[in-house]
């Protein structure tokens, strides 16, 4: 299981801004360790953000997304007190889901 994400969701009128920080190495597979051996690729491949039953964003990522990824976006129709869930799955099958309440 991955490390916890840091999530923020804030409503301004009917627009909710979601900010997500994920703890992940996002290793490209192109780098070498000091001994000269390649470091295996390890990166998040899919991200899904839901508000109740509704998917508000889905993404597919390659290893060129920066380490400890940051993502923010906005959607309409969210309400204060509602729950935002964020899930990621990486190339090793590791996954993590966290939730936050819209403020």
């Amino acid at each position, binding site marked *: 299981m991955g490390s916890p994400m840091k999530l923020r969701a804030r409503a301004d009128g009917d627009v909710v801004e979601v900010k997500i920080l994920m703890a992940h190495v996002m290793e490209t597979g*192109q780098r070498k360790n000091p001994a000269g051996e390649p470091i295996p690729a390890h990166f998040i491949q899919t991200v899904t953000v839901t508000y109740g039953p509704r998917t508000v964003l889905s993404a*597919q990522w390659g290893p060129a*997304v*920066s380490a400890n990824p940051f993502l923010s*976006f906005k959607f309409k129709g969210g309400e204060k007190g509602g729950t935002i869930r964020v899930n990621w799955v990486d190339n090793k099958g590791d996954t993590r889901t966290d939730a936050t309440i819209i403020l």
Partner: protein
Amino acid sequence: MPMLVHRFTKRMQMNQTRRDVVRQGSIVALLMAAGLLRPGDVCAADWNPAAFEIKKLEDLVTLLGGEPATASDAIAINAPDIAENGAVVPITVSSAVPGTDAISILVEKNPNVLAAAFEIPAGTLPEINTRVKMAQTSNLFVLVRAGGKYFYAAKEIKITLGGCGG
């Protein structure tokens, strides 16, 4: 000086003409082939390596299909012209193209050009703020799908050498 301006103007006109002819749907075709821009839920099984393993922009030409993508001023890329470090290049991309339902970010000179693809369901604003790696100074491309058509914008971002040097 007038000579210089004239030369550039002429080159731009030439390219303008060519652009009309060129079929630019390669990335689009690829992404569709990869199931990347398919509507609906995304799960791990949907992640298709083909799209993320493209090494050169030219490779995409072989997958040319779909409708040509059009350069669009309705796509805004907010990013610094110069990044202090290529490991983290902050970008905000937004599309004012009506009906935008997918946004992809590509880096021309990265080993694999496709960095990230986002699906924008109805009700979500077509604006993404994230950070990508850039191996070197390169053009960054944003590809937008709207109403089944494809649009793009580009920006060059310089990656500088930094620090004490090692």
